[in-house]
Every structure is written in structure tokens, then in C-alpha cells.
């Protein structure tokens, strides 16, 4: 087959397009990024995590600052959740971690509310104040029960 500059050029374009598509999928869609060492890993214990799963987002004031890296059961049978935060985030020691739901039936995430202390949490330390997941089923159950009792009392 004869060497053909046009063919080489088209093949080059094709390879560029292919690599571009791979890079788009990995970086933009897949969210691949090099974080490097030095991320802030915090621990929080909850009585009830509801439907929280690994890789759920962690947000401060609704802005995503990290994700849940691990969920396990600690010896006292509470859920021990490890949060992986960006290294640039400064979290005061009296901050609160609560499990919230985005929307009425949406996915669950962890909301961090920063406290007012000067002292900051270091990697590996535990967030003292936590708020467990609100179970909608349990709320509805309570509401129905209470409503039933009320009507009986009125009779």
C-alpha cells in the first residue's frame, strides 16, 4: 500500500477524536481527578443512617466538598461513617454532621454545619455532634398512630 499523507492525517484525526471521547468520559462524566495526598478524613457516628451509601456527597451550605468513603459498624453497634473532604476545607471542632435527603424522595447526603470554635478538626478525628437520618416511614407511622389516638380521645 502506498504511503498517503491524507490517510495519515485522517488516522491522526480519528485517534485524537477517540482519545478526546475517552478523556471526556473519564474526566467530565466519570469525575476522575487527581486529589493527591492530604485530603481531610473525618469520622462521624450515627444511630441511624437510613439509605446513606458510600460515595454519597458531603455538603457545606449545599456546596459539595467531599464524599462518604466508608460505612461500618463500630463495637457499640452505631454506624461509623468516614468522610473524605477536600484538603482546603477547614472544619471547626464543634461542627454538626447531619444526614439529609435532597428533595422529598431523593438521595441522602451528609450536611456539615460549621461551628464557631477557633480550633479545627484534624484528619482522623471524630465529629462529636451528629444528627441521624429522618425516616419518613417512621414519621408517617407516628403521625397515623397519634391521629388514631386523638380521634379516640375525642369520643
Amino acid at each position, binding site marked *: 500500500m502506498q504511503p498517503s499523507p491524507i490517510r495519515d492525517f485522517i488516522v491522526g484525526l*480519528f485517534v485524537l477524536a477517540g482519545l478526546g471521547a475517552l478523556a471526556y468520559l473519564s474526566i467530565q462524566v466519570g*469525575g476522575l481527578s487527581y486529589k493527591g495526598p492530604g485530603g481531610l478524613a473525618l469520622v462521624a457516628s450515627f444511630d441511624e443512617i437510613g439509605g446513606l451509601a458510600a460515595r454519597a456527597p458531603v455538603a457545606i451550605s449545599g456546596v459539595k466538598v467531599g464524599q462518604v468513603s466508608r460505612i461500618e459498624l463500630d463495637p457499640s453497634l452505631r454506624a461509623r461513617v468516614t468522610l473524605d473532604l477536600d484538603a482546603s476545607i477547614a472544619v471547626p471542632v464543634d461542627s454538626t454532621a447531619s444526614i439529609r435527603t435532597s428533595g422529598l424522595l431523593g438521595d441522602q447526603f451528609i450536611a456539615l454545619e460549621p461551628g464557631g470554635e477557633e480550633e479545627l478538626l484534624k484528619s482522623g478525628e471524630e465529629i462529636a455532634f451528629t444528627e441521624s437520618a429522618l425516616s419518613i416511614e417512621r414519621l408517617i407511622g407516628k403521625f397515623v398512630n397519634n391521629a388514631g389516638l386523638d380521634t379516640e380521645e375525642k369520643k
Partner: protein
Amino acid sequence: MTVSPISTLGLRTLELVGHLGRVAMFLGHVGRVALKRPFRLRRLVNEVFDIGVLSLAIVCLSGATVGAVLGLQGYTTLSRFGAAGSLGAVVGLSLVRELGPVLSALLVTGRAGSAMAAEIASMVTTGQIDGLRMMSIDPVDFVIAPKALAMLLVLPMLSALFVTFGFFGGYVVGVELLGLDGGTYLSSLEGSIDFRDDVAQSIVKSVVFAALVGIIATYRGFHAEPTSAGVSAATTSTVVIASLAVLLFDYVITALWSV
């Protein structure tokens, strides 16, 4: 003398084992010459053109069509639950995890794998392979390795293009035709896809499929009967075996990935 069914079974098993062994030795040979100088870059570029550039139109068009169909089907189902906002996640996850690698591998098997097998088989039939051997040129090095290597390089890229065009097809149907918000579609798509679970799985799949299709097509062509019936048998069995192998390995990789 009549052959008992049990003997037939034994014969078939021995044949299968023999085939697998020859494929493994062939694979080793291809790998050895592909890593050895000379690298035959000129032939590789030509093969990338034949397999990749010429398959570009069919792969991109199929990708956009599949994405559009997913968008339409997903929208009708999701809007019944009031969850049309997660259309992007449905389109994105099914394309990245399954449809992109599998469908592009099947398309390339039909479009380029069959042509590859037919070309090599007719070289065997017309004595061109023997001619190369007489000039003490290793036909595996000169003919087979560039083709198999080009397949390995090209299929992951074609699969990524398939997926990207699928996103676009889903966007056109979901956002432009059905009136979903563009930002909702894209953020649900990008938010649901993870690199390690989804994109890496997709790339590993298409690399494995590329190796399968490349080695099956070249092996069947190279070991074809030197008759015109042999050429057609090699082409047919390439498409059949490669398609089945792709679907089988797709299941295996999916099952292993979540372990």
C-alpha cells in the same frame, strides 16, 4: 464401523481442546512479534484507517440512534413515576456500562472483523501467505499482528465515541423533543456515573472485546481451508464466534466487577 455417540463427543472435545491450544499459541506468537522490532508502523496506520476510520460513520450513527431510543423509552417509563429528571442517569449508565462496549464490539465484528478474516483467508487460499514464508517473512509479523494490534487500539476509542454520541442522541430526544431541562439531563448523567465503577469498567470491557474479536478474526482467517468455501466459512464463523464470545465475556466481566 459405526461411531458411537460417546466417541463423537470425545472427538469433539479433543478438537475443542486442540483449537483452544492453537489459539493460545497463536496469541503468544502475535504478542511476541508485536513487541519486537521492526514495529511496522506504516501497516498499523493503514489498518487503523481500515478498521477505525471506516467504521466511524456506522458506530457514531448507531450510538446516536441507540441514545435517542433510550431517551424515548426511558422518558415514557420514568415520567409515569414522575422521575423524568433522572433520564440522564438511565441513558448514561446503560450506555457506559453495557451498550457502548457491547454494541460497538458487535458492530466492529460485523463491519471489520469479518473483512479481516476474509482478507486473510483469501491470502491463504491464493498462496500469498506461503509466498511470504518463501521470502522468509513471518506472515504473522507482517499481516496478522498489525491487524490484531489495530483492533486493540481502535475498539476502545470507537466505544467511547459510541457512548458520547449516545449521550448526544439522548439529549436531542429528551431535551429538544420532549422538553426536559438540559441542565437536569446533563447533571443527572454526570452525577450518576463514577469513574471506577462505570467508566473503567467500560474501558476494560472494550479492551477485552477488542482482544477477543482481533484474535478470533485473525485466527479463523489464518487457519482457513485454502478453498473458496474455506474463505466463506472463516468469515461466517468469525462473526458467530466473536459475537458469542463478546456477549459471554460481557456477562463475566459485569459479574466480576461488582465482587
